[in-house]
């Protein structure tokens, strides 16, 4: 399945530095992520993992250096081109809507309206079939995290997945499921960047690891 341009959709960071307020969080980060590769960013709380991910998807401008995706600088709008999926530290869901409505809305952000069957299937995969119609306000942290992650089965067109602490609040079953989703994405020549501050079995399979 490797086409000649498969080498082009790479994520590159050149000497990236980040400043939050008046603190220099990190500098000199240079790396290159190719299709089918997974990058794990680890570090203690407050060392800038989330900031690095936000710099990677262009939400936070780098204080120095460049982030390139497909050889072009990241501008924080790459999701519009359906090329990138960013799941932040917060779950990014609306409390008043149910899990199904949230997933429907999140999928619409990819420019598509998936069928109800597809949404149901994604909810089933995420383990939320029983609580699909309940307003998110009444669900637990773990269930909200699952709802946020339920976008992944629907996010087939997005090549680059940037996931901030996706394993937070997930139980063992959820962790298993998420790992299989991530590996599945890699097998489809996708790229995955994720952070975690715990040790997980997935860590051993990461192609690149960045310690902040």
């Amino acid at each position, binding site marked *: 399945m490797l086409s000649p341009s498969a080498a082009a959709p790479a994520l590159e960071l050149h000497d990236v530095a980040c400043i939050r307020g008046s603190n*220099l*969080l990190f500098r000199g980060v240079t790396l290159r992520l190719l299709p089918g590769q997974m990058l794990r960013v680890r570090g203690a709380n407050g060392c800038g993992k989330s900031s690095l991910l936000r710099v990677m998807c262009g939400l936070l401008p780098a204080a120095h250096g460049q982030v390139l995706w497909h050889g072009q600088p990241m501008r924080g709008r790459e999701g519009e081109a359906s090329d990138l999926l960013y799941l932040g530290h917060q779950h990014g869901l609306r409390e008043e809507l149910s899990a199904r409505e949230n997933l429907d809305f999140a999928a619409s952000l990819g420019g598509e309206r998936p069928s109800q069957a597809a949404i149901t299937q994604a909810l089933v995969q995420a383990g939320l079939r029983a609580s699909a119609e309940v307003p998110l306000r009444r669900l637990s942290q773990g269930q909200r995290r699952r709802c946020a992650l339920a976008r992944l089965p629907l996010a087939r067109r997005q090549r680059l997945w940037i996931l901030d602490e996706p394993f937070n609040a997930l139980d063992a079953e959820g962790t298993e499921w998420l790992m299989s989703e991530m590996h599945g994405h890699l097998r489809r020549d996708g790229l995955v960047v994720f952070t975690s501050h715990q040790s997980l079995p997935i860590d051993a399979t990461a192609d690149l690891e960045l310690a902040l």
Partner: protein
Amino acid sequence: MSTTFKPLDRDASTDAARSRRWLWLAAPPRFFALATALIPWCLALAAVLGAAGLWVGLWLAPTDAQQGEVYRIIFVHVPAAWMSMLIYLAMAGWAAIGLIFQARLASMMARALAPTGALMTFLALFTGALWGQPTWGTWWVWDARLTSELLLLFLYLGFIALHGSIEDPRRADRAAGLLALAGVINVPIIYFSVQWWNTLHQGASVSLTRAPSMASTMLSGMLLMALAFWAYSIAAALMRVRAQLLRREQHAAWAQSAAHTQARESQP
């Protein structure tokens, strides 16, 4: 197979200082030196022009038949009003450059101009009231120009307040800059609507715009005062930018030595 990248050690303060210096390119130290050199000249120019303008206004210009000596306050009122508008335009211009070209020095210039602009606006309002009281018996007149000046003051205050309440300096620069742009586009609309409102309601039978007809001496006096205010505004803005640079760059070596020189000079 995993490879570990470790970013460079970021604890050393000199390291941080060096890293921030390359972020600024070399511009701030040069600008700082330029500003330091310009300020005394601008202040001197302001003093000379101001003296000349006041001489024309208070001595040369003839006494008005209707309003007597009081009208002379227009030599401060009108130039202040002109400057308040001009400074807003300049502020918005610098803010636009800062926004579009990501030039932090331009945003700092906009921030530095704002208080002086607010001062000019306040001066225009204050002298307007001082003029209105002996001439027409009221401290405030709802005429088009005064009302527009009041709204302009609120626009300045909004800019300063917005900038001051956002902690991240970069976001503060950009948000306040966007507000200045929105303001500058709105200002003609506001002026027009206030004019419309004023003529429609036929409220005050007096208007500060109906000043005594301009003799050429009066005009030259006002121009001199306007130029004096302009020179002062430049000096004030440059002084503020210097202070901002020193504050934001407090770890850089050049800023520390500049601060030391300043401290040494101010000691008796």
